[in-house]
């Protein structure tokens, strides 16, 4: 079974430029997460989707970040314009449908390392 796929793996851009990350979750996983991970830190949730609905975007900086998951499968995370402080690894994760009371193990992609110059 293929894991979570992310592209690109690395991206270097100058500040004020736009950038987009793509994620393809594990087949059948209805929940998709975007995280940001700074060096030496744990993951920070940016947005969580249940199918095509964003159910938690409370940590997404909406002035410059946007995300979409139009058909409830692939997802794109965009930053426009990028700032120096956006340099980080952007992780995508997915989890399968759960029964009531059973929690969801998240499976992560390899991440996209963004460097903003």
């Amino acid at each position, binding site marked *: 079974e293929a894991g979570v796929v992310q592209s690109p793996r690395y991206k270097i851009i100058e500040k004020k430029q736009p950038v987009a990350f793509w994620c393809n979750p594990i087949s059948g996983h209805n929940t998709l997460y975007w995280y940001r991970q700074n060096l*030496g830190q*744990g993951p920070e*949730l940016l947005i969580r989707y249940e199918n095509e609905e964003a159910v938690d975007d409370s940590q997404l900086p909406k002035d410059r970040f946007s995300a979409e998951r139009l058909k409830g499968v692939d997802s794109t995370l965009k930053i426009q314009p990028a700032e120096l402080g956006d340099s980080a690894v952007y*992780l995508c994760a997915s989890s399968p449908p759960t029964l009531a009371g059973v929690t969801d*193990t998240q*499976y*992560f*992609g390899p991440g996209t*390392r963004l460097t903003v110059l």
Partner: protein
Amino acid sequence: AQSVAQPEDQVNVAEGNPLTVKCTYSVSGNPYLFWYVQYPNRGLQFLLKYITGDNLVKGSYGFEAEFNKSQTSFHLKKPSALVSDSALYFCAVRDSNADGNNRKLIWGLGTSLAVNP
């Protein structure tokens, strides 16, 4: 409020010796607890989780963790460390009673494990 702490930034252990990576948590309800491992330039990999039942949970690569409710801990252990176990380890917790925007994992800052040959 939910929180998780990994009190050690780094753990050093000799190959063949037992290892322990510590994690303590705070939730208002019953916890769901997870351990993930991150190798250099890789995404996070699921190791094991505690949902309910037996306090000793066995996971991938020979790792296990013991849930201790009275001490609110979920320490990761392995009887005999390998050099290849050297990586960054993250503990995460979710309150089983959480819903909505609170239904998300809270991550520790990570512990760097170095296994010396």
